[in-house]
């Protein structure tokens, strides 16, 4: 069954025709081509599909797209307008090596945002609880925790924006075929 939904995604009003079986993550990825939202398990465990729905993080594999009618959705792509104005949390992840393969990263960053929105000066324990819904298999969370601590300092105005030790050209797969 097809159904039409109207929602706001990253500040932009969208009208989307969706199959009623479709999960929100698929709609964002396949229909809006916002492929920064990743899918890792489909059962609400890994958190790679985390987006913000009406200002709160949710796992978009557990939300039917049809149920997002009227919602205000923020994905990782909504955190910036260009590579030069990434969100301070993203900058902190880059500067503190808070990522490796990058698959869990967009969801992790949105969980960090949710945490810091509500709690600008979290303890290490609060950070760990704040991101416990996002599984990372590469980093052991160590540099992620430090990235969030760093981002918190910047957002509190106690430190200037973090900067990576170098700004290199991106290493990339030879061909990008994001359709």
């Amino acid at each position, binding site marked *: 069954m097809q159904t039409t939904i109207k929602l706001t995604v990253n500040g932009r009003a969208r009208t989307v025709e969706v199959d009623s079986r479709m999960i929100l993550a698929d709609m964002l990825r396949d229909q809006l081509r916002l492929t920064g939202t990743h899918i890792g398990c489909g059962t609400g*465990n890994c958190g790679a599909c985390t987006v913000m729905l009406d200002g709160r993080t949710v796992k978009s594999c557990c939300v039917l797209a049809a149920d997002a009618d009227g919602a205000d959705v923020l994905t990782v792509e909504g955190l910036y307008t260009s590579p030069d104005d990434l969100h301070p949390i993203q900058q902190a992840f880059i500067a503190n090596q808070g990522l490796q*393969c*990058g698959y869990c990263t967009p969801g992790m960053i949105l969980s960090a945002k949710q945490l810091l929105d509500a709690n600008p000066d979290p303890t290490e324990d609060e950070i*760990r609880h704040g991101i416990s819904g996002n599984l990372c298999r590469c980093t052991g*969370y160590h540099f992620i925790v430090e990235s969030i601590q760093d981002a918190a300092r910047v957002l509190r105005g106690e430190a200037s924006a973090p900067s990576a030790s170098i700004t290199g*050209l991106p290493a990339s797969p030879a061909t990008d075929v994001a359709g």
Partner: protein
Amino acid sequence: MKQVGRRVTGLTNTQLAAGKGTFVNDVVLPDMAFLAFLRSPYAHARIRSVDISAAMARPGVIKVLTGEDAYRDLRPIPEAWNTREIGAKGVLWYPIVKDRVRYVGEVVAAVVAEDRWTAAAALDDIEVDYEELPVVTDPIKAMEPGADLVEPAWGDNLLITRDWIAGDVDAALAGADRVVTGTVRSNRITGVSIEGRGCVAQWDAFARKLTFWESTQNPHPLRSFLAETLNMSENSIHVIQPHVGGGFGLKQPPFQEEPVVAHAAMVTGRPVKWIEERAENFMATGHSRDTRFEYTVGFNADGRVHGLRIKVIADVGAPTALLGWGQSFVTGYSLPGGYDIPDTNVQLYVVVTNKCPWNAYRGFGKDAQSFVMDRIMDHVARETGLDRTAIRYANFIRPDDFPHSQPSGAILDSGNYQGALDKLLKKIDYAGFRALQAQAAAEGRRIGLGLGQELTPEGCAMPGALMISAYDGATVRVAPSGEVTILTGVTSPGCGNETAFAQIAADVLGCKLETIRVIQGDTELCPYGLGNYSSRGTMYGGSATQLAAQDLRNKLAEVAASMLEAAPADLEAADGTFFVQGSPDRSVAFNAVVNQVYRHTFGKHAEGVEPGLESTRYFRMGNIYHQPETQGRFSNYPAWPFGSSAVVVEVDPQTGMVKVLEYTLVEDAGTVINPLLVDANLHGAITQGIGSAMYENISYDENGQLQTATLMDYTIPTAIEMPMFSIEHQETPSPFTPLGMKGAGESGLGSTLGALCGAIEDAFPELDLRITDLPLTPNRVWQSLRTAPRKDGSGFGPSPSATGAARPAVAGAVEAIR
């Protein structure tokens, strides 16, 4: 500025933090169709018939492929590890099974449809008539005479057995002061990259060209495997590796799914995409480490081990073309770890069962080797009453005893195990721990410290194996504008070797780091290479990059020398400038030198210089011996990193819950190119080690049904379970790589297992507590605690004062029980 040794952040960070990577599921092609696999629901069954008529009739279904198609149109999947060459049994494994399924998850059919929903829904339309066959799940029973067989043609369930003998074990044991025996088990686990597998195939019938995108670690070997299975020429296949969302060994080909997706694209004329579901990942991508060890160890009162016999029984699941079973071989091969035990007998039994086959996973059997050796060393310490460190010091291979030959024929290149343990004990204030423990005990808390030593051979080269060898290639190019491009045969599924290559090339060329771009994972752009496994990326790719960059450096130095009227040997290069040693003012810009090569090819300074600024070089590793000597032994691991770790845990005696409080690792993988990224890798490896030892377990029931097919059942650690890590490096360089690196991708994992067991035991000094089995579930720890005899003979289990049972139920105290 010298770049090697700097904590440079990853070159892919910005792209990935923005969510702008291109992973395989982001590859979208016009007119793309979707494929779904029907997998066996039985652990062992004969297929009587497959009826696809209902599936074909479903609107939107384009094609259904079965075993008939595979056996007619495809060839068997080539083996990743050349089993026959080392005397192991093998099977012909087709991309789709026709007659008999041997584990839950083996591919029985595939549906290609217009969309993912239809493809998945049509799986239910396929009628397969199965006749259930006897199921083999217990590796010990599987070795008994008359056991049911996984492969009836074999006559038994043993894929390979192997004895590695050094010295005279019987005599050594007879002469030892004491002899003890023990049995320990490491559990069945899997890697769980957060991105599963997936591929997209596109066939151009007119150009006769297959383009294949896959989340793989090994694009070039995959090309060969596809060519062989599809029976087509290799130069008709173009493999592209997009960003890979974690590999950890499990994305090494050849799988059943790859040729099926490619074949589907060829027969339908449509681009075809398959994206693995998490449940498929658990049932078919591969398991590892399910091993039982039975040991007999002799030792003297001084803690020196004289005589060690270890029987290694590995349950590797069903035999296929995957290389995973080789992990059991490496476990046996790398025993007795970092210890000098001249009289050693290792007996390896590799048993097949009706379970998902093993596939490569970080650690690759070295983890299990480190685990059993740590358990043995702790056992000897308990029996002798000596400190656990004393036993290790007494038995370590000495720093002046390298190269060192092991019973397997393995030749250890270099190491300083004492040095690493020294550093560790100092870093954690080992001597001070007892005071902390006593203080915790006074507060009613049980904490314990465990030690782990890991020997992690890297850079594997298997005789006759295409994918597994000790070389790799790199191309370094300088464009007319002066920017540098590096193309490598190794790949980076998130481990950061691309950043290391840029650092290495920047130092050799003297160019600026930020002018370097790295390209990997494309068989038509990159030099031939074997991809990512066995911690080889920086060791081989980095060394090849260095060789290629040196070629260009030599050429540029010649031109620069002419420009500066100096001898090439007197020049230095750094930060984009060539200058005369000792006279930095006599300098010329890197780009100006490049300009001479490209635009003044026939001018004064480039006279006699071969045009072009591009070099492709291959690095060939030393310390590999493939011509077998008398016992048929060979040395296939050239680099031997070592690590020494300490963990502090708190155990709740009432529940068996274990919490990791502190984790410290001293790692020696030779020269460190990028300490930041090596630390990042180590953090991940430690976490995977702790996860596998404490929270993760693949479980089958007696019918061979997988009981852990979701992340709800197979629980990997969250941030809450992990502590911050403390890492220190010792650098004992490899004598065989130009910069001295040994490979650090797997380091950090192997020492977690034994360290955790030892820490739990250490938390209960009043008990003769023996932790023998992984994983360390609360139930199992609790059971071990309550049945452990007290050393004073007063009964079993932790002394009551430590259990909290005697706590007064007063207001102030009760809240502390949390």
